[in-house]
């Protein structure tokens, strides 16, 4: 039977990871006066960052109060996974030991993946992806399967994220300032459509992302090692319909999350303005507040 949903999703309370603070620092808010400004600017500066960060806090904490804020459940069903041949694994000889919990059984020596578990894991993975995209994280699609390289790059381009389906240079994640330029921002999520490379070994990026504390989502087939992947999704990664389904799901989820972010920001900005206008005539002694709310973080 389906395992109980981990407590992360069920409860609304999401223990704030350190990454949240990091992202806050990374994304530039309104031009906040630095600590060095002196004089009259100091007075206005006091109210400005507080109001700005309040809005920011509300925007970011809103999705965490709901179990499935982005409603990813409706995007797929066990039936649709079955139709896309996601349940088909490799032959029993190729089976990886750590994939045994996810395998339903074996038919004529071919492993069949348990789609009930896949559905659960896929929902977790899509939800996490949506949250990362909502918080304006960088998503990197990685795969080394030449058959689907074009499709994956198109997927990444369509949802405004990044792809790497080419030869993976050694220190790309671990030595990024040297390879990509000083001050580069690393991806906040790496999605593996294929965990193995062309010689059927685990992709180097799985290990490197784990080293750099970057969460990973990965489609793991019966011959893959799910250990280092943060959100493994057991499923078929060799059939075109399956890979197309996964690409479509990720694209939809990311676009939805970004759209939702825009809506929520607009909503809160409007509410803030209305609130300020409502208070305005009664409280003319706080012009700074209104100005700051109007200026509001356009993130």
């Amino acid at each position, binding site marked *: 039977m389906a395992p109980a949903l981990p407590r992360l999703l069920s409860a609304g309370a999401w223990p704030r990871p*350190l990454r949240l603070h*990091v992202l806050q620092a990374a994304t530039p808010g309104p031009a906040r006066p630095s600590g060095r400004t002196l004089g009259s600017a100091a007075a206005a500066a006091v109210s400005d960052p507080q109001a700005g960060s309040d809005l920011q806090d509300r925007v970011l904490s809103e999705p965490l109060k709901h179990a499935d804020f982005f409603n990813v459940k409706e995007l797929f069903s066990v039936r649709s996974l079955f139709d896309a041949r996601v349940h088909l694994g490799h032959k029993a000889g190729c089976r990886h030991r750590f994939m045994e919990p996810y395998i339903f059984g074996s038919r004529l020596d071919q492993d069949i993946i348990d789609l009930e578990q896949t559905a659960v894991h896929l929902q977790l993975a899509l939800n996490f992806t949506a949250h990362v995209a909502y918080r*304006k994280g960088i998503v990197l699609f990685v795969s080394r399967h030449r058959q689907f390289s*074009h499709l994956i790059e198109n997927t990444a381009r369509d949802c405004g994220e990044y792809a*790497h389906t080419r030869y993976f240079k050694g220190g790309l994640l671990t030595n990024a300032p040297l390879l*990509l330029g000083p001050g580069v*921002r*690393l991806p906040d999520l790496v999605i593996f459509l294929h965990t193995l490379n062309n010689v059927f070994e685990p992709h180097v990026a799985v290990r490197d992302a784990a080293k750099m*504390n970057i969460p990973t989502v990965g489609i793991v087939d019966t011959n893959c090692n799910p250990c280092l992947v943060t959100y493994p999704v057991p499923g078929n990664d060799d059939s075109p319909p399956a890979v197309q389904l996964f690409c479509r799901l990720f694209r939809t989820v990311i676009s939805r999350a970004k759209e939702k972010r825009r809506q929520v920001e607009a909503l809160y900005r409007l509410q803030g303005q209305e609130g300020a206008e409502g208070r305005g005539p009664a409280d003319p002694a706080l012009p700074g507040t209104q100005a700051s709310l109007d200026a509001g973080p356009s993130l």
Partner: protein
Amino acid sequence: MAASCVSCGAVVSQRLLLRPRVSLAPRQVLWRAAELQSVPGPQILRLKHVTVVTTKKNVKALRRETYTVDFIKKQIEEFNIGKRHLANMMGEDPETFTQEDIDRAIAYLFPSGLFEKRARPVMKHPEQIFPKQKATQWGEDGRPFHYLFYTGKQSYYSLMHDTYGKILDIEKHKNQLQAKGLFSEKDKTTDLIGSRWLIKEELEEMLVEKLSDQDYAQFVRLMERLLQGGAAGEFVQSFRRSVTVQSEKQPIEPVQHDAQGMAFSTSEGRRKSAKAEAVVYEHGNGRIKINGIDYLLYFPVLQDREQLMFPFHFLDRLGKHDVTCTVSGGGRSAQAGAIRLAMARALCSFVTEEEVEWMRQVNSFAHIWNDVSRSSTAMHSNLPHKSSFRLDCSRLIRASANGRSRARREPAGSLPGRSAEYCQERRGRVHLRVANTHQ
């Protein structure tokens, strides 16, 4: 575990940067402040070579000289203003001051005797001086602009992606036509003759990225595959360069007529130090006269006569022409070769164009035989003999060690050619400590 958050901004990345790289930074020479001696009279200033290990800040700058867009713009403005000043100085019109005028003016104002042309003072447009570089690849929020940024070679892979997309489109189109039964094997336009693919350096320049040989080979293969699929469009043409047509037209001498009305044609030929001029008559018996002497007597050796025979033998006109020629210089073999060349050229006037092309392909007109007299390593040919190098080097070193030589601004000026490097190689690491005497 979440402590070292790498995805944040400058602070951490700096920490990563600063870690080890105090590398062998280029040594900087510093003039030490002259230690003024208390004794009045002539002071001796000594130049000491001092190695300064550059601080960590400089290492970052030295490794990657990034020129910002503003910097380049400023340089361009300065260049334009400087150009006008220069024109005024030379008394010319600033409006019509071209780059050649600039070069001439600079050569006039700053004459330099340096052998290395690239070391001479130069004033060119900044775009030719500063290497083309990519602007910063990401925006304020740190998100890169290009969706393939994390591959490292975004332009190249983007090009490959687009090319593959085109191949897929062509195949899909072909499948649709075939399904409808409208597909026909159209003749592929052969507009590829006379053009070649970009070479690797040209492609690197176009993409502003370094490529490996495998990358380049893969690119060419993909392009070929695209060509197979369909007609070459503008997209493919942008990666082809025209090749200058190889068949240089051999100038055909005009046929002249002499007093008796006999048609003939004259031509010259040279081989090594021998010069020959041949007059080939259109109709004849195959007699050849050289300097008034019959060829059998002039060239007793069979090999030379075979050389004379060749142009006629190739065109199957062995006994059909008479030749009168004059030759001077060189040895017997060189003279034979010179006459052969002259005859081949003269024969062109009596022969069809196709046969001229054949003769060109057989190198009848080419003059690229090995000149054994000149050594192939031409660099050394003008320089004095090897042994004199050693003498000069040792003299220089001895002189400098004694401290008697005057430091020269241009060390290459005293000795010819590459003697400085030669000394370096021969003597190992030579540390020259040159004292600047100053009276």
